[in-house]
């Protein structure tokens, strides 16, 4: 813009000026792009740096000890790590089939006039803040679990061999099962809208050929659509998994916040994110350092999951390009 205000300079001078401005502009935007590149590495390294005290004092036992006692200076993160993985797995177990069903419904079953409004509604629901899901879980789901579902489970599933240990314990309502349920409800709109979007990229002539040969709708989805979009569907599932692993607020309300190890899905436990959110405010500097290290662990886990997700999604868009 400043060049407009300049007096008419000889062309060569103007060219030099333009070239300099071009270089400046390019340099500035390149700098910001590199900033984006380093912010991810910065996030990881800063948490590792913040947690160096605890890492030094606890060593590797931080990752496998289940003894989390900030007062005694003992930090073993097995319970939150286990809780994070288990709640996310429960959430995936429920949300993957349901999301696939919704995507199937929205792309093949539903009448055409219903597809866009329902699809849009689900996409909008994916944007609702997670704290709302947490509050719903706390005020609606938890009392239900406490009064009806958990007593039923301890009576009917508790005595079973092997899996029985998962379903024993006092009916408190807070626990990994409740958290997994809330997480599932939260990621369903997310995964199903990704799946729907991916299903829509399948060329119409492929599906039409299959229908013309007499395939049923299910056969079209299972044998044509799913193989074509497999990598992207897996990518979408992993994106949802990444969200479930790192979710804080939906879980913090209903997990119960107990760092005692329990095999039961029905008793209070904790996850990495919930533990950080709950304890950070009142933590001593040393405890904060442990929480930062815990954040680093969460970062590593989600990074791997998200990297796989992006790689899988990229594969589909490459095929679209060719």
């Amino acid at each position, binding site marked *: 813009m400043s060049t407009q205000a300049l007096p008419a300079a000889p062309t060569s001078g103007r060219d030099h000026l333009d070239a300099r*401005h*071009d270089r*400046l502009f*390019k340099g*500035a*935007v*390149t700098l910001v*792009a590199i900033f*984006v590149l380093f912010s*991810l590495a*910065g*996030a990881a390294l*800063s*948490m590792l*740096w*913040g947690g160096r005290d605890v890492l030094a004092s606890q060593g590797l036992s931080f990752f496998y000890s289940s003894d989390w006692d900030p007062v005694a200076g003992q930090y073993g993160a097995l319970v939150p790590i286990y809780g994070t993985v288990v709640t996310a797995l429960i959430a995936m177990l429920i949300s993957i089939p*349901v999301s*696939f069903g*919704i995507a*199937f*419904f929205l792309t*093949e*079953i539903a009448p055409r006039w219903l597809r866009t409004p329902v699809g849009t*509604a689900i996409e*909008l*629901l994916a*944007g*609702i*803040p*997670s*704290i*709302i899901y*947490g*509050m*719903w879980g*706390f*005020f*609606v789901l938890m009392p239900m679990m406490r009064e009806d579902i958990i007593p039923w489970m301890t009576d009917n599933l508790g005595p079973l061999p092997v899996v029985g240990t998962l379903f024993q314990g006092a009916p408190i309502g807070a626990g990994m099962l409740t958290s997994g349920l809330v997480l599932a*409800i939260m990621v*369903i709109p997310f995964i199903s809208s990704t799946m729907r979007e991916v299903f829509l990229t399948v060329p119409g002539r492929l599906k039409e050929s299959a229908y013309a040969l007499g395939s*049923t709708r*299910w*056969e079209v989805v*299972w044998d044509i659509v799913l193989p074509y979009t497999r990598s992207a569907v897996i990518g979408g599932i992993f994106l949802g998994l*990444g969200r479930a692993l*790192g979710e*804080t*607020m939906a879980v*913090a*309300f209903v997990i119960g916040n107990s760092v005692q190890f329990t095999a039961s899905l029905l008793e209070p436990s904790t996850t990495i*994110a919930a533990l950080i*959110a709950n304890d*950070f*405010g009142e933590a001593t500097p040393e405890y904060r350092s442990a929480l*930062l290290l815990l954040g680093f662990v*969460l*970062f590593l886990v989600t*990074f791997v999951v*998200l990297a796989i997700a*992006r790689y899988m999604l990229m594969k589909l868009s490459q095929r679209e390009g060719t």
Partner: protein
Amino acid sequence: MNAAASISPATRRLYRRRNLINSVAIALGCAAALFGLAFLGWILWTLLSKGLAGIDWALFSQDQPPPLEAGGLRNAFVGSIMICGLGVLIGTPLGIAAGTWLAEYGHRRKLGTVVRFVNDILLSAPSIVLGLFVYAVFVMALSKGQFSGLAGAVALAFIVLPVVVRTTDEMLRLVPVQMREAALSLGVPQWKVIVQVLYRSALPGIVTGVLLALARISGETAPLLFTAFGNGYLSFDVSSEMAAVPLVMYQFAGSPFDNWVQIAWGGALVLTLFVLAVSLAARFILLRNKVGHD
């Protein structure tokens, strides 16, 4: 299916089995859709029925109260508006710049692929991790442990950044190459082509990205816990602790006091309506733009 008598029994059995599987799958698909929508409808219903009772004039005109006293969320609304506004102001220009580099300079380079990949990871990284990052760098190292609204804004800016980078990148690449060539052939320097021609064409898309980012950060709680921290009083000072609606909701909803819970639901309803309105507006702008491009 049952057309000719010449179909052998084995084929008929196969047809019947295929039809059966298809019907079961369709029934399950419908059930899944109903299941998902029922839960989501249930959540919205809870939100409406509990939230409407919490919305009155006091919610906007009074600050957050001590337990068992009347009050509202004015300080939290002010805090949220300031933190989110600042977050968008910091994140947007950076995001546009990085997106411009991706679309115009780094498009075919290896570094471009890497930056795009990292940006995608950042886009779905857990927000609590970004909050801890800003706590470690901004609060602990730079401000000697002083929590501040500005730190909260920086944390939210890291959520805005990847969203804006992505949309800017995508929207700029949608601009026809002929437009760039026409402008360049007139002797316009490249930066001017980008700023005065390409941005103008990509503007609705970029605005959509910024609105989507705003919808996302206005409900964020976790990153603010370690940065803005929360503040029980009305404050306009971004260099000290600041309240935010989700933070107060987190504190109030888990409390045993009825009036606090009531206020939390009121805040939840206002927040959700705001988020839905902003995302609808974003969709509307994108839709109108799409029509214009054809």
